[in-house]
Each structure stands twice: as C-alpha cells, then as structure tokens.
C-alpha cells in the first residue's frame, strides 16, 4: 500500500507543525512520523530544519516541524524562518497547505495567543489539544467541541505521549487540508485595521505588488526594528516614516503600538475560553510547585543541583570508560587485522595509522557523547533544565550571559562538541555565539591523557595537611586556567565584537513530568549520529593529511646504512634460528625492536612534519620546547589526544604508547637537546605544555561542529586564532616565570 502511495498517483499534503515550547511538540512529531524524519539546517541560518512524513488512509502527509515559539512576531532568525515557512516565502521549502497547531490543555490562555496569530495567516488549521490528562489532574475540564465551534476549526484532544487521539487527528488533518477557511480571528480596533490597510497600499505603490497583510501588520507592530533591518522587501526610508506616523496616530487614538496587539489578542482569548474551560475549586498550588519549592530552595536546591551535575559527569565517565576501552580494543584489533593482511608499505601505514587510528580517535568519544546527550535530554524533558538555568542565572549574569549558557559550558568539560550543540537552547544569537566560542576552553576529557602524562612524570608529589597534594593542585590548576580564560574571553567578547544588552531572562518554568523515553532516545540518537556523520568525514581527511606529513617522503637513503644492514642481519638470523640459544634470540629481537624504533624516529625526523618541526624550533624555543615537542604539538592540532602517541613515536618508542607506559616516562625524563646533554624536559617545560594544551583549540571536530552550528567558517577560524594565540602567550609566560622562579 505504501508502494502504491509512493507511486505518484496520490497527492502529498504539506502541513506545518507549530506550537509553544513545552507543549509536547517533539513527542507529537515523533508519534506521527516515527523514524521517517530528516533533519538539516535552513540555508544561511543556524535554525534546525526538521521534516517527517506519514500516511493515512490513501493520503500522504509531509510534516514540517517549526521551532517552538510563543509568538509569530519575528524578532530572531528562528521566528523569521517560522513566519517565512508559514507564508510560503522560505526558499527550498514547500508552502504548507495547512497548519497543525499543538496547544497545552493545562495552559490554554497563553497557548491561544500564538493560535490567534496563526489563524490570521488564513491557512486551514487544526488544533491538537495535548496533555488533557495533565489538565484533568489539575481539575481543569475543557469543552473541546464548544471550543471547536467557537474557533470554527477542528479541535482534537490528544495525549501525544500515550499515542491517544492520533487517528482522529490524522483524519482531521486529511479532511482539513481541502475546503474553505473561515476561522474566528481576533478583531483589532478599527483605527488599527485602517492603518494596516493604508500601509499595505503604500507598500504596493512602492513595490508594485501587495505584500502579505500579515507582514504589513507586523511591520506596524514591530517596535524593536528587527523587521525593517532584516529586510522586508519594500521597506525604505519613506515607509519607515509612514510607519512612524501611523504609530503616532494610533497612540493618539488610544491603541498604542505594541501594547494593542497583546491586549486585543488576550481579550479575544478570554472571550473564546469563557465557559469552555472550567476549574474545579482547588488549591492553586500544584504538585509541581511543591517540588519546585524544594529544588529551587537556597540550600536544598543548590545542593541538589550540584549533586545532579556531579552525578551526570560521573555517569559520563562511568559508562564512557569501559565503552571507550571496548572501542579502543576493537580499533586495535581492526588495525592488527588490516595490518596483518597487507605488506609493509605506504598503503598499510595509511590504513592502519591514518584511517583506523585517525577515525578511531573520534569514534572513541561516541559513548561519552551519547551518555551526555542522554542525560541532557532527560533533564530537558523532565523540566529540570529550566530550573538549572534559573538557579545559575545570577552567576552567569555577572559574565554578561544568562543561565541558559551554563549547561553547554558544563557539558564542555566532558567534550566541547556536545557542549556546542547544546547551545541551541539559547535564543539570543550573540549569547549563543559567545558561549560557543568559549566552550572549547573548558578542559575536555581529551586533555586528560597529556595532563596525566606530564604531571606524573615531572611534578614531584608533595602533600600538605594529608589531603592537599601538589599533583592534585596542578590538575586543578590546569582546569582553572581554562575556565578562568573562558570567563575572561566571554566578558571581553561581550564588551567588544559581540556587544549587546545582557539578554533578558523571560523564561517559562514548565511543570515537572516524567521524561518521555522515546523522545529522549530519539533526541540522543539524532544528535549523536549527526556528530558522527559530519565530523567523521573531516576527521578522516585531516587524519590522512597528518599521516602523510609524518610518513612521506620516507626515503630509505635517509636512514644510516649501518642501521639498515644491522636490521637485515638480525632479521635473517631470526628467520633461520638453528643453533642459537633462547637467550640469544631474545636479546636479538630486543635489539631489533630498539632498532626499528630508531629507524621509525629517523623517518619521522626526515618527514615533512619533522622538517616543519625543526623549522618551527625558533618559534617554540621560547616556550622551552625542542623540535620534537613542536612536532608532536603540530601533529596534535587536528585532535589533541594524539599527542601522547606522537610523543611516543618521536622519542623513538613504538607507536602503541599509552600514558601508563613507564618507558615513555623514562624516555621523556632522559630526553636531551640534540647535540648536547641538557635535558629537554623539566617542570617549566611540563607547565608550559600543560598550559598550552589547556588553552589551545586542538580539535578539528570541534571546529567543524562550530562551522555547522554557525553556518560560517568565520567563527571557527576566529576561535582557532584566538585560542592558539592565547595558548602561545600562556605557555610562554608559564615557561619564563617558572624558569625565573628556578623550578
């Protein structure tokens, strides 16, 4: 049947789904469309575009999920997109033939404000009256039939989370998308209507055609200037003057803009709902309020918040670690398998070191990304996220941001990628940008291996008062450097290039409810796979490039003749082991291993990366680094977690190095500047490296995700530049100060 429907004989109807935030819109969308969903971005903006489809009877419906909004007054790109889609002005999106408006039955008054605006668009509209169970539990009864009669459109009671009423809704949608429209709409004062008509004819005179009446009305009402700035066709100096004069006349007539809109609409809502909604006479304090008194309490609320956040990150580490181990093992197994099948040469090296290791280094982050997204989705869905923002607002306000920036920044301690993706909850564009730009400064888990290696190798353990150790202090310092830099940069950005008023904190605190597992899992899965798909392709490309730089030119003539001869000699002896003692053979294979590492190190030294590293030495010498560290740092720009492995290769160890490896500790301690006996490493170098890694943007995936979220390379390039500069200066200062102190 589905085949028949797709064969083209049946018409597809496009319907836009719109509703306030926290009305169960996502639940309804996934209940209707199941897994038939596509996500992407609208061209040129950071607004997520989500569509899905379903079949009902003989019809096929494409559903466009619009961003949750309280009003159709466009004051942000999100709202502008919503209006453009509804008016059929959005390029690449089919103009909707009908609108499905979801409303929260327990909060009808405010929800009908948006409905009143939607109805003025003149599209066939169906209302899904969701959460009737929540309303009933609060003693609210709604006469849906009477509401439907008064609004002159279908009102279908549903429970999206239990999938109740969906067939009725689908039936109403299929019938509704044909037939005439005669909804009830709010009646504005005559003076206002007249002003809109006059403006519309002015527009027509200027443009040659009449713009949608809805936009003209918005132009008159929009005192914030967003509409005239974002370019409604035909808005120019003359019209701005007309708008101003019309507003003055309206103020004189007693219906001043913008107040007249809210007053007229809420009056209309009051009329519509009179006698339709009845409340049992019961206490105004709901169960959700009682939970709220505890969870936003000065003491218990704060304690609960800290506990929740701590638990969330514990969970991320707890689940992510064994999963990472498993993936790491799988990666190693795959590398060994592929390596075993191919002869030594560029192809094997490319597949094993470039592709498997490179892409693998991204995939190992998947478990923690999924776990974190899961936690965030649960907190969002049960209503606690809004409380977290409420609790943290005062703190974030000091920095010039608002409470909603807190969770993305906190998430970035695990990984900046989910953190950056979590900034989607911030409506204000500037704040969202600032949060994104500083998120990579939070010390993510990929920085842990290098911190751990350097601290264990170079920082002596001293303990004061039994609890406070020097090593712990340096760990804490590494995290503090990043966080303090993030605060400073955020404050600086808010005062310079992203200057703007401290954003308002007008936020609904939705009622608490049990999370909807289907929605939670779906949201987690979608965000997670998006990361794999987009970041994965770039990481593959970069990994191959770094591999090539570290591998080529790979000339045998660069390796001393004596080394190669000795290696061949040992290999042939080992191949024909007759007449040799066991101990002899063991010593020989040990020698071979060391020799192989030396040869590998020499190839690297002569590779393009090695040449670049040596060329960079003057630049990194003030930081206390030799060319080998410079090399390792340069190679770790696509993904900082590779630095430990690269250091291992460079200091002539095998490439399978982990930071637990005692050999690497020893190799680093014993490393000397080339051609001298002066050790390379010491506390100052260790500190300068730690500070560098704390502040530097060495993560290709983060930059790619930032590019995707901002739809421009400008911001990732900016972030990369400022963080690299910051890291260099920070490392320089730490090295020079530590040296001067004589550590």
């Amino acid at each position, binding site marked *: 049947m589905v085949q028949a429907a797709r064969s083209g004989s049946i018409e597809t109807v496009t319907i836009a789904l719109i509703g306030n935030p926290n009305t169960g819109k996502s639940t309804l969308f996934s209940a209707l469309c199941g897994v038939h969903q596509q996500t992407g971005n609208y061209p040129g903006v950071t607004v997520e575009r989500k569509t899905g489809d379903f079949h009902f009877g003989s019809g096929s419906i494409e559903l466009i999920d619009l961003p949750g909004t309280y009003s159709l007054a466009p004051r942000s790109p999100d709202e502008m997109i919503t209006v453009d889609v509804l008016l059929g002005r959005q390029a690449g999106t089919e103009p909707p033939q009908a609108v499905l408006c979801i409303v929260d039955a327990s909060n009808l008054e405010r929800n009908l404000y948006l409905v009143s605006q939607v109805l003025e668009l003149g599209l066939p509209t169906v209302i899904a009256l969701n959460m009737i169970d929540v309303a009933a539990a609060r003693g609210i009864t709604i006469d849906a039939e009477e509401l439907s009669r008064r609004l002159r459109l279908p009102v279908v009671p549903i429970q999206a989370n239990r999938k109740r009423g969906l067939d009725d809704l689908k039936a109403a949608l299929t019938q509704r998308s044909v037939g005439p429209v005669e909804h009830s709409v709010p009646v504005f004062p005559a003076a206002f209507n007249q002003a809109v008509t006059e403006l519309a004819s002015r527009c027509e005179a200027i443009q040659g055609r009449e713009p949608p009446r809805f936009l003209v009305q918005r132009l008159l009402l929009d005192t914030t200037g967003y509409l005239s700035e974002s370019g409604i066709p035909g808005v120019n100096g003359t019209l701005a003057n007309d708008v101003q004069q019309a507003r003055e006349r309206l103020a004189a007539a007693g219906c001043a803009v913008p107040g007249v809109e*809210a007053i007229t609409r809420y009056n209309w809502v009051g009329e519509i709902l009179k006698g339709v909604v009845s409340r049992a006479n019961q206490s105004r304090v709901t169960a959700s309020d009682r939970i*709220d008194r505890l969870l936003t309490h000065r003491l218990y609320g704060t304690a609960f918040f800290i506990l929740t956040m701590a638990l969330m990150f514990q969970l991320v580490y707890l689940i992510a670690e064994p999963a990472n181990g498993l993936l790491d093992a799988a990666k190693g197994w795959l590398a060994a398998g592929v390596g075993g099948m191919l002869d030594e040469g560029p192809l094997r090296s490319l597949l094993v070191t470039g592709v498997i290791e490179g892409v693998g280094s991204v995939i190992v982050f998947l478990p923690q990304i999924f776990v974190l997204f899961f936690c965030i989705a649960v907190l969002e869905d049960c209503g606690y996220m809004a409380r977290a923002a409420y609790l943290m607002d005062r703190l974030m306000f000091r920095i010039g941001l608002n*409470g909603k920036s807190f969770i993305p920044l906190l998430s970035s301690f695990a990984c900046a990628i989910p953190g950056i993706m979590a900034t989607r909850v911030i409506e204000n564009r500037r704040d969202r940008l600032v949060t994104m730009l500083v998120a990579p400064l939070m010390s993510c888990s990929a920085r842990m291996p290098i911190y751990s290696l350097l601290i264990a190798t170079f920082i002596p353990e001293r303990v004061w008062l039994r609890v406070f150790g020097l090593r712990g202090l340096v760990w804490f310092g590494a995290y503090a450097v990043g966080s303090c830099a993030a605060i400073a940069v955020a404050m600086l950005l808010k005062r310079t290039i992203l200057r703007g008023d401290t954003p308002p904190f*007008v936020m*609904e*605190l939705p009622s608490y409810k049990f999370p909807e597992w289907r929605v939670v899992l779906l949201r987690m899965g979608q965000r997670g796979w998006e990361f794999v798909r987009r970041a994965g392709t770039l990481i593959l490309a970069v990994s191959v490039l770094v591999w090539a730089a570290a591998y080529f030119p790979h000339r045998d003539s660069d390796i001393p003749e004596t080394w190669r001869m000795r290696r061949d000699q040992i290999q042939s002896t080992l191949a024909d082991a007759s007449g040799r003692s066991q101990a002899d053979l063991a010593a020989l294979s040990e020698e071979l291993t060391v020799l192989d590492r030396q040869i590998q190190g020499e190839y690297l030294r002569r590779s393009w990366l090695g040449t670049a590293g040596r060329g960079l030495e003057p630049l990194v010498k003030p930081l206390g680094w030799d060319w080998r560290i410079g090399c390792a740092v340069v190679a770790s720009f696509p993904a900082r977690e590779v630095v430990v492995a690269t250091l291992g290769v460079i200091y002539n160890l095998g490439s399978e190095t982990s930071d637990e490896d005692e050999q690497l500790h020893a190799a680093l301690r014993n490393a000397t500047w080339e051609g001298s006996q002066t050790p390379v490493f010491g506390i100052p170098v260790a500190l300068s490296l730690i500070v560098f890694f704390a502040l530097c943007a060495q993560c290709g995936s983060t930059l790619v995700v930032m590019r995707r979220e901002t739809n421009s390379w400008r911001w990732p390039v900016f972030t990369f530049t400022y963080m690299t500069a910051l890291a260099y200066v920070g490392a320089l200062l730490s090295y020079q100060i530590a040296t001067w102190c004589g550590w």
Partner: protein
Amino acid sequence: MNAGEMSVGDQASVVRVTGDDAISCRLMEMGIVPATELELIGVAPWGDPLEFAVRGYRLSLRRAEAARIEIVAK
C-alpha cells in the same frame, strides 16, 4: 509599585508594561497585559531571578525585567 518589589506570596494585578523594546513585547506576549493577575511564588538562591505564577503557568523574570511591570497590590 512594580513587580520587582513584590515579596514571596504577594498577589497583584497588572496596570501596564512600560517600554516598547523586545523585552517588553515578550512580557506582553507571555500574557502580562493590563488586569492580569500575578503572584510571586519564589526567588532564586542569590535573590534573582524571580518565579511568578501568571495565567496558570510559571514564568521566571529577573528583577530588572519585573520592574517594567507596573502593578497594584491585591
């Protein structure tokens, strides 16, 4: 009097919302228009923001934003 000066448990009726920028527009869209009833039901740990009950739902505002709402106490 304005809504930023209410104490927890106070009930009031809105007289008007001052200003015509995005914040004031948003406040009105959220249902704060003349004669709407407001109740302050909570304050965040550091004294800001505030939690109001309005039209049967819960709305959080900073004191600075609440100060745009002129009220008469009930």
